[in-house]
């Protein structure tokens, strides 16, 4: 026997060391290219500074609240798409899925007089059915998802036309739906939300540590937990405080965190939980990284792919809900144009289109980057043509920040 136990003990778990050690290790990982959403956050900051210089209205509480609600639809769609993009697949029909299900919802409520909650349930189930349909063809039959979902992209436009019919345009008359984007929580509820976030974060951290201790493996120094909570407290505190100021313009006092924010955060949290801590989530990454390896490891690859499409379509329904809440109406073209932006949100945030790499939070941040482009340009009053050009240019620029920082950091030429 040549191996000596002493040297073998060297295998660590990356959790050892002081705060400084951990910080150094993190910095080195970043310098080595593992930067997650950092470039997107950088892009967001740069764009914000740019727009703050160009328009005095950009850095107002009011516009900050605008940004959150404007981004929400795209954030939700981006998160929906992450589930399939992680598999290296795509869902071009996610946008029209949100549109079609909202057509169904509004017709059920307005024309057929359904209770809105029942109608919403039906819309969500339709989303599930659509995901099941896509999943069947992609995961079982083996058709490239690009083609299946392009087919549905066309087909659903037709269904929207057939459903919406000669009315052309329906008002959303459910106050509960309208309030998602247009109403705010009371100020105290905003602070309560922050408290819940802090408590959940602390709780999971301590619980994880307890389990690790029980298993006898090292824990990160507890200081990191406090630092993390501190960061949440400061950023969250600033956001809630800003949104607690009156941002109305004299006609009506407006303050509080928009209702869409806690909904989005809850889904983000739940989705992240599933992706990080459950078999389904782990297998999504595994299949996206190497489907054959996952299959050989006994992962039900077909089932995972299938389920991911169901999750995507279902979350797309919620993004549709956000959209009609904001617009207040539904027409036969609902959701036609948004899907490419949703994919772009994920990609800009650092999710790899080749699968296996990325997180929900990345898509959310990417969506914020894209939303801030529209938001900022909206304050500048540019002609339509120029607006298109600038949007495109800024999008490429934002992606360049990402790419350049990764390459600088020693990422190699190939992107896989």
């Amino acid at each position, binding site marked *: 026997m040549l191996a000596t136990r002493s040297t073998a003990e060297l295998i660590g778990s990356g959790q050892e060391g002081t705060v400084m050690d951990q910080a150094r290790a993190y910095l080195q990982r970043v310098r080595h290219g593992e930067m997650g959403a950092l470039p997107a956050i950088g892009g967001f900051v740069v764009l914000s500074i740019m727009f703050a210089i160009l328009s005095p209205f950009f850095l107002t509480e009011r516009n900050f609240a605008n940004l959150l609600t404007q981004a929400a639809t795209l954030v939700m769609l981006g998160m929906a798409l992450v589930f399939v993009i992680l598999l290296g697949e795509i869902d071009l029909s996610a946008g029209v899925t949100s549109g079609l299900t909202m057509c169904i919802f509004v017709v059920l409520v307005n024309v057929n007089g359904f209770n809105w909650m029942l109608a919403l349930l039906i819309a969500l189930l339709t989303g599930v059915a659509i995901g099941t349909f896509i999943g069947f063809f992609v995961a079982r039959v083996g058709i490239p998802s690009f083609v299946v979902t392009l087919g549905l992209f066309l087909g659903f436009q037709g269904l929207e036309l057939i459903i919406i019919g000669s009315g052309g*345009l329906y008002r959303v008359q459910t106050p509960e739906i309208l309030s998602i984007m*247009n109403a705010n929580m009371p100020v105290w509820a905003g602070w309560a939300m922050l408290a819940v976030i802090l408590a959940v974060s602390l709780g999971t951290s301590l619980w994880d540590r307890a389990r690790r201790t029980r298993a006898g493996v090292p824990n990160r120094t507890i200081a990191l937990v406090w630092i993390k909570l501190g960061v949440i407290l400061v950023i969250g505190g600033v956001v809630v405080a800003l949104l607690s100021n009156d941002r109305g313009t004299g006609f009506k006092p407006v303050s509080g965190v928009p209702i869409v924010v806690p909904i989005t955060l809850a889904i983000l949290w739940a989705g992240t939980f599933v992706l990080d801590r459950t078999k389904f989530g782990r297998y999504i990454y595994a299949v996206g990284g190497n489907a054959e390896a996952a299959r050989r490891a006994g992962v039900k690859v077909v089932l995972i792919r299938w389920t991911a499409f169901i999750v995507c379509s279902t979350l797309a329904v919620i993004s549709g809900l956000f959209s009609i809440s904001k617009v207040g109406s539904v027409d036969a073209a609902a959701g036609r144009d948004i899907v490419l932006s949703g994919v772009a949100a994920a990609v800009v945030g650092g999710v790899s289109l080749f699968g296996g790499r990325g997180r929900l939070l990345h898509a959310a941040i990417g969506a914020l980057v894209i939303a801030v482009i529209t938001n900022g340009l909206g304050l500048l009053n540019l002609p339509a043509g120029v607006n298109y050009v600038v949007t495109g240019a800024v999008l490429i620029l934002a992606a360049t920040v990402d790419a350049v920082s990764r390459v600088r950091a020693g990422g190699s030429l190939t992107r896989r």
Partner: protein
Amino acid sequence: GCSSSGGGGGSSDTASPAADSRACVILPDAASSPRWEGMDRPALEKAFTDAGFEADIQNAQGDTSKYATIADQQLSKGCGVMVLVDYNGAAVSVAAKAKGEGIPVIAYDRPIEGADYYVSFDNEKVGELEGQSIVDGLKAEGKDPATAVVVYMGGDPADGNAKMFHDGADTVMSAVGIKPAQEPPGVWDGDKSATNFEQALTALGGKVDAVWVANDTNAAGVITILDKNGLKVPVSGQDASVAGLQNVLLGKQTATVWKHVPDEADAASTLAVALLNGETPTVDKTLDDGTPYIAVTPVLVGPDMVKDVVAAGDATAAELCTGEVAAACATYGVE
């Protein structure tokens, strides 16, 4: 007509009427509005058949290539007149081809470069009515149009009609001194329109006195943003859609421009029948490029007139008077 070139081919389908007794119609698509298949087709068909002519009506279904293909087929069967609704410019070369064979071309609802006649709901007039509703709305609130803060929310600038709506509205509004305080990029999309308007409003510090909006879809998004901010100002629109009419009844939208399609179809078929009969109808109006132009008048529908739309069958009380609108229906006698 120059149908003489038939050549010795002598096609055997003697049952078909002479080429110059056929009216060829191409409708653009069914996606932009349900009117084409639902209203224009039956109205035109009936008018031509009643006048003793054969109608060949086809729909290009939103495909410029198909548009050209249909035209080729119709032209080779022979046409006495062509009634074309343009789709993304596809009608231009068709019109040129038809004129090359001496066939008169009527541009229906949308202008076509090189057409002999243009019959339309005057899109500029639609714009003017929208502009007028804004001006009236401002006056009703006792605001001076010249100092009022007005936001312009137009349609997709790649669409020729959007420009006409804009120009018409602008004529009326600028006449009383209105200048756009903000004019975000035009779109035909409720979601983007809502975002664009929200940002324009923010850039105006939350102050707005009126919003010119090109259609009901965009208006719905604008109204939601206004509601959210506790604002209620004059808002225009067109299409007399369900949501638009409801917003009008609720007082959230000042008025919507209503285009009763049978009027337009009548005007076009009357003109076409005259052409088929070999007459050369004269028309009093002309477009900038000199094309004779029959304008069909659109109607501005405020809350009082919603019942007229219902009476004309373009909407039903059942679909309008749901939820919170029911009370308004009662007030304005919609039933």
